[in-house]
C-alpha cells in the first residue's frame, strides 16, 4: 500500500470543496470561541483587579457571554455540515464502485462473491468516508486554530507564543504519530492470534455437539484461551507507546503554561509586557489544546481509513471487460468445441467438452460431486473465460460479443446466486422486469413452491431477508430456478435444481425442466430416473466427458450408469 492510497480514495469521495471549507470554518470558529473565551475572561479578571471604571469592562463581559453561546451553536452546525459532506462522499464512492464493478470482468465479480469481499466492501466505504469527520476535519481545525492562537499569543509576547507553538506540535503531531504507530503495532501483532481466536470460537460454537460428544470441547476451549493470551500480549506490546502518546498530550499543556509563566514574568518586570497581558498569555494555552486532544484518535482513524481505501481501490482497479468487437445479436445455437473449463490460473476441471445447444434441445450433465459442474456452467454462459477451445453463439465467438447480447441469449442459474433483500416478485423480476403477478405465481407453482407461496404472509409481496436467510435451503434453490425460468433468454443453464427435495418432487422438477421448449442444460448430481426426458446425457468423470448419449444408450453401454440407476430404482 502506497502513501497515495488514501489521497486517491479521498479524491474518489469527490468532496464538495465549499461545503468542506464551511465545515472547517465552523469547526475552527467553534473551538476559537473556546480559546477566545479563555483569553477574554483572563483579560477581564486581570483588568478588573486593577479596578477600572466598570464601563471599560462592558465589551469584555458581553464578549465572554457571546463566546459562551457561540461555541455550542457553531459546533452543532459544524457537525451537521461535516457529516453531510462525508455522507455525500460515501454515496459518490459507492456509486463509482458499483459502476466500475458492473463493468469489470465477470470472473472478478464471481471471485469477490466467493471470497465474501463484497460483504466487506460496504464497511470499507464507510471507513474511508469516516476519515472526513474523524480525520481530515479535526486535523484541519487543529492546524487553523493552533496557528491562529500562536499568532495571537506572539502578538502579546513572542517567546510565550513560540513555546505554545512547540507544545502544540508535540501534542498535535508527535503524540498522534506515536499513537498511530502503537495502534499499528498492536494490529499487526494481533492479526494472527485474532484470526486463530475467531476460527476457534467459530468452530466451538458451530460444532458444539460433535466436539462435546467427541470429548474435544475442553481442548478447543484451551486453544481459545491460548489465542486470547497471545492477543493480550500483542495489545500489551502497543500499550506502552499509547501511554507515552497520552502522557505527551498532558505534558505539553503543562509545559506551555509553565513556559508562559517563566518567560512572561521577567517580561513584565522588564516592562515588555503589561500585567494584564501576562494573565492572558498564561491562561489562554489551557484552552488551545482542546483541538489537539482529538488528534491521536484522528491519526488512528486515518490509518484505518487508509487500509480500507487500499481494499476499495483494489476493487476499483479490477480489470474491465474488453469492449465488444462484434455487434451481432446473441442467439442460439450455443456451440462449444473442445472446451476446457476452469478458474483462471488453476488447472482445468473439465477438458474436451463439446456441446451443441439449440432451441428445444435438452442436455443433462451428470457426475460425481466436486467435478466442477458449476464452473462448467459459468464457462458456457461466458461468465468465466474458457481456458482452451471455442464457444460461439450463432457462429459468433462469445468473447467478441457484447456482454448483454450474451446474457440475452444464455442465462445461468447457479446455486450461489444472490437472493435480494426485497419481495419475492422483485426477486423474480431480476430476470425479467415486466413479469406480472400471475406469471410469477405460475412459475412458482411450476417449481413446486405453490404451497410455500400460500403460506407467505404477504404472498408475492413478502420481503425475503437479505440473501434469503429466512427461507430454507430447498426453497431458496427453487426460487432461483424459478428466476432462471422467467428469464426471456432462449437458452437456460440450471445448476442442481433438485437438491434438498424428496425423490418424487426432484424427479418431477428435473423432468419439467428438461421438457422446457427452450434449450436447456441441467446439472444433476444424483437421481438418474428423470433423465429419460433429456435429448442427451453427458456423464462426467476424471476431468472429461466419460460417456454421452441418450439415457437409454447410457443404460445399455455404461455399466456404472446402469448400476447407479438400478440402485436408485431398487430403493424407490
Amino acid at each position, binding site marked *: 500500500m502506497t502513501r497515495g492510497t488514501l489521497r486517491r480514495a479521498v479524491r474518489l469521495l469527490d468532496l464538495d470543496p465549499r461545503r468542506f471549507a464551511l465545515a472547517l470554518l465552523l469547526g475552527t470558529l467553534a473551538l476559537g470561541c473556546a480559546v477566545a473565551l479563555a483569553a477574554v475572561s483572563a483579560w477581564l479578571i486581570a483588568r478588573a483587579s486593577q479596578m477600572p471604571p466598570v464601563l471599560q469592562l462592558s465589551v469584555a463581559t458581553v464578549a465572554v457571554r457571546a463566546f*459562551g453561546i457561540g461555541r455550542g451553536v457553531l459546533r452543532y452546525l459544524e457537525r451537521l455540515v461535516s457529516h453531510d459532506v462525508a455522507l455525500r462522499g460515501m454515496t459518490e464512492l459507492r456509486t463509482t464502485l458499483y459502476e466500475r464493478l458492473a463493468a469489470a470482468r465477470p470472473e472478478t465479480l464471481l471471485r469477490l462473491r466467493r471470497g465474501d469481499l463484497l460483504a466487506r466492501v460496504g464497511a470499507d466505504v464507510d471507513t474511508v468516508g469516516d476519515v472526513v469527520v474523524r480525520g481530515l476535519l479535526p486535523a484541519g481545525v487543529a492546524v487553523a486554530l493552533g496557528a491562529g492562537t500562536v499568532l495571537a499569543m506572539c502578538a502579546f509576547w513572542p517567546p510565550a507564543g513560540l513555546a505554545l507553538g512547540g507544545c502544540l506540535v508535540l501534542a498535535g503531531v508527535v503524540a498522534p504519530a506515536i499513537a498511530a504507530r502503537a495502534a499499528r503495532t498492536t494490529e499487526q501483532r494481533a492479526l494472527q492470534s485474532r484470526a486463530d481466536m475467531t476460527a476457534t470460537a467459530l468452530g466451538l*460454537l458451530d460444532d458444539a455437539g460433535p466436539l462435546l460428544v467427541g470429548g474435544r470441547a475442553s481442548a478447543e476451549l484451551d486453544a481459545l484461551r491460548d489465542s486470547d493470551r497471545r492477543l493480550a500480549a500483542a*495489545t500489551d506490546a502497543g500499550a506502552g507507546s499509547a501511554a507515552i*502518546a497520552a502522557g505527551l498530550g498532558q505534558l505539553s499543556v503543562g509545559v506551555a503554561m509553565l513556559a508562559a*509563566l517563566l518567560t512572561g514574568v521577567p517580561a513584565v*518586570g522588564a516592562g515588555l509586557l503589561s500585567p494584564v497581558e501576562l494573565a492572558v498569555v498564561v491562561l489562554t494555552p489551557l484552552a488551545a489544546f482542546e483541538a489537539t486532544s482529538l488528534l491521536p484518535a484522528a491519526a488512528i482513524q486515518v490509518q484505518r481509513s487508509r487500509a480500507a481505501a487500499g481494499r476499495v481501490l483494489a476493487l476499483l482497479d479490477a480489470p474491465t471487460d474488453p469492449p465488444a468487437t462484434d455487434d451481432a445479436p446473441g442467439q442460439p445455437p450455443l456451440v462449444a468445441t473442445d472446451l476446457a473449463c476452469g478458474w483462471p490460473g488453476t488447472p482445468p476441471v473439465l477438458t474436451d467438452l463439446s456441446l451443441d445447444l439449440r432451441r428445444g434441445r435438452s442436455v443433462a450433465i451428470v457426475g460425481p460431486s466436486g467435478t466442477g459442474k458449476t464452473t462448467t456452467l459459468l464457462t458456457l454462459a461466458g461468465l468465466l473465460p474458457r481456458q482452451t477451445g471455442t464457444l460461439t453463439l450463432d457462429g459468433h465467438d462469445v468473447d467478441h460479443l457484447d456482454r448483454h447480447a450474451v446474457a440475452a441469449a444464455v442465462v445461468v442459474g447457479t446455486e450461489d446466486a444472490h437472493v435480494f433483500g426485497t419481495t419475492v416478485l422483485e426477486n423474480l423480476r431480476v430476470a425479467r422486469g415486466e413479469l406480472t403477478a400471475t406469471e410469477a405465481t405460475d412459475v412458482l407453482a411450476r417449481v413446486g413452491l405453490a404451497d410455500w407461496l400460500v403460506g407467505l404472509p404477504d404472498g408475492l409481496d413478502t420481503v425475503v431477508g437479505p440473501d434469503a436467510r429466512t427461507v430454507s435451503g430447498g426453497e431458496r434453490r427453487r426460487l432461483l430456478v424459478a428466476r432462471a425460468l422467467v428469464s426471456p433468454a432462449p437458452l437456460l443453464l440450471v445448476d442442481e435444481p433438485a437438491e434438498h427435495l424428496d425423490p418424487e418432487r426432484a424427479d418431477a422438477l428435473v423432468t419439467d425442466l428438461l421438457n422446457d421448449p427452450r434449450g436447456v442444460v441441467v446439472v444433476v448430481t444424483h437421481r438418474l430416473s428423470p433423465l429419460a426426458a433429456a435429448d442427451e446425457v453427458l456423464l462426467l468423470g476424471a476431468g472429461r466427458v466419460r460417456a454421452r448419449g441418450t439415457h437409454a444408450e447410457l443404460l445399455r453401454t455404461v455399466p456404472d450408469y446402469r448400476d447407479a440407476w438400478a440402485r436408485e430404482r431398487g430403493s424407490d
Partner: protein
Amino acid sequence: MRPLDPRLLRHARAARGYVALTAALGVLTAAMVVAQALLLAHALGAAVSDGAQLDVLAPTIGWLAAVVAVRTLVTAVQERFAHRAATRTVAELREQVVAHAVALGPRWLASGEGPSVVTLATRGLDALEPYFVRYLPQLVLAATVTPAVLLVVLGLDWISAAILVVVLPLVPIFMVLVGRLTQGRSEQGLASMQRLGAQVLDLLAGLPTLRAHGRERGPGARVRTLGDAHRQATMGTLRIAFLSGMVLELLTTLSVALVAVAIGLRLVEGRLDLVTGIAVLVLAPEVFLPLRQVGVQFHAAADGVAAAGRAFEVLETPVPAAGTRTAPDLRTATLRLDGVAVRTSGGSTPHGLDLMVRPGTVVALTGPSGVGKTTALEIALGLLRPDDGRVSIDGVDLADLDTATVWAQVSWLPQRPVLEPGTMAELVGGDDESRTTAAALTGLDDVLATLPDGWATPLGRGGAGLSLGQRQRVALTRTLLQRTPLVVLDEPTAHLDAAGEQVVLDTVRALRDAGRTVLLVAHRPSLVAVADDVVLVRSDAQVLA
C-alpha cells in the same frame, strides 16, 4: 444504560483491579487539578497584582512543574493499563460466553439468540475496549474531579459555586429531556437509515447475479438514489441526535462565562481578590470537563455495555443440571426413546417417537425432511432434553447419567464432519496396519494417493484442503478405528454420488460385523435396506418444506 454494571466486576477479574486503579488515579487527578489551579492562581496573581518576580515565584512554579509531571504520569499509567484491562476483560468474557454456550448445547446455539452469540464472541465484545479505555476513566473523573473541584470553589467563592451548582443538575436533566423528546424520531430514523444502508450493500452483493442476467446497468442510478435517501435519513437523525450535545456545550460554556463575568464585576468592586478569581476561573471548566467527556464517549461505550449485557444474558441462561451416574456399558445396554417430542413453534418435531437401539444392531431413522430426525439423534446423544417422553439406557434416565461417560462410548458423524487440525494419521488414529485396512474400506486410500505426503499430510482446521466428500471419508475411517460401542451417522450419504454411497454401505456393514451398534439417519432407500430396524420419524407440525 447502567454506567458500571456490577456483573462486569463479578464475571471479569481483570475488570476489578482496573476499576480500583482507575478510582485511585481519579482521586489523584482530582487532587492534582485543584493543586494546579491554586498554584497557578498564586503565581499569576502575585505577578499581576504585586509585580512579583521569578525569584519570589520560583518555589510555586517548581511545585507547579511537579504537579504537571504527576498529571503526565497519571495519564500515561491510566492509558497503559486501560488497554490491558480491556483486552483481558474481553478475553475473559469471551471464554466464559463460548464455554457456557457450548454447555447449553447445539440446539440452543441453533435457535433464538444462538447465532448472535457467534458475532458477540468474535466481534461484539470488542466494543468494550472504548468503554474501558475512554468512558470508564471519564466516568470516574466525573465522580472525583467534579465534586472535589466544586467543593474547592465553594470554599473560595460561594457565588461562583452557586452558579455552577445551579447549572450542574441541568446537564443531566437536559440530556434526558432532549433524549426523551427525540427518542421516537431518532429510532425511526435509525431504522430507515439501516434499511437503506443494507439495500445498497444488497445490490453490491448481488452484482454477479445481476450480471448473469445482463441487468447490471440500471441499478447504478439506484445506488445513488438509495445513497441520497440514506444521507437524508441519516441527517434527519443526526440533526436531533446532535441537539443534546449542543445543549450540553451551551450550558457548560455559558455558565463558565457567567462565572467569569461575576468574578470580574466583584473584582472591580474590590469584593474579591485576584488570586481567588484566577483559581475559580481555572477551576470552573474542570467541573464540567469530565461530564462532557462522558457525553462524548457515551455512544462508543454504549455499544460495549450492550455487548456485555448480552454476554451476561448468555451467562445467566441456566444450564440443565448434569447427571452424575456412570453410564451402563453400551456393548450390552439398550438405548430407548419413549414417546419423545420436542416442541417448536409449528408443533412437535419429532412427535411421539419410540425408538429402541439394541446392542449390535443397525437402526435407521427415516422420514421426510424437517420432521426432526437430526433432533432425534441429538436427544439420543443427550445433547438435547426432550419436552415430552423419556430417554433411557437400560432403564436409567439419560438425564441422571454423566453425559461424558456416555459420550466416551459413542462416535458421532454429523452431516458435516468436524475435523481438528493435524496430520491425516493423527486425525484417523489407530496403528499403521489397521489404518490401511480401514482406509481401503472407506475409499480413503484413493484420497491419500492424491496427497503429497500420504498419511503425514497436515490438514487445516475443519479439514481445509479436502472436499466435503473426502472429509467424509476421513471421518468414516476414524469412526471405524475408534472402536466405540455405538456409532451415530447423520445422513452419511448426503452429497455423495453412487460410488461414495457404496463406501458408506460397506462401512456400515463392517461396523455391524465388528459387533458395533449403529444408529443412522437415512434419506436414500439403499441405506435403509442395510438396517435391521427402520423407524419412521413423524412430526405434527403443519408446514413442511
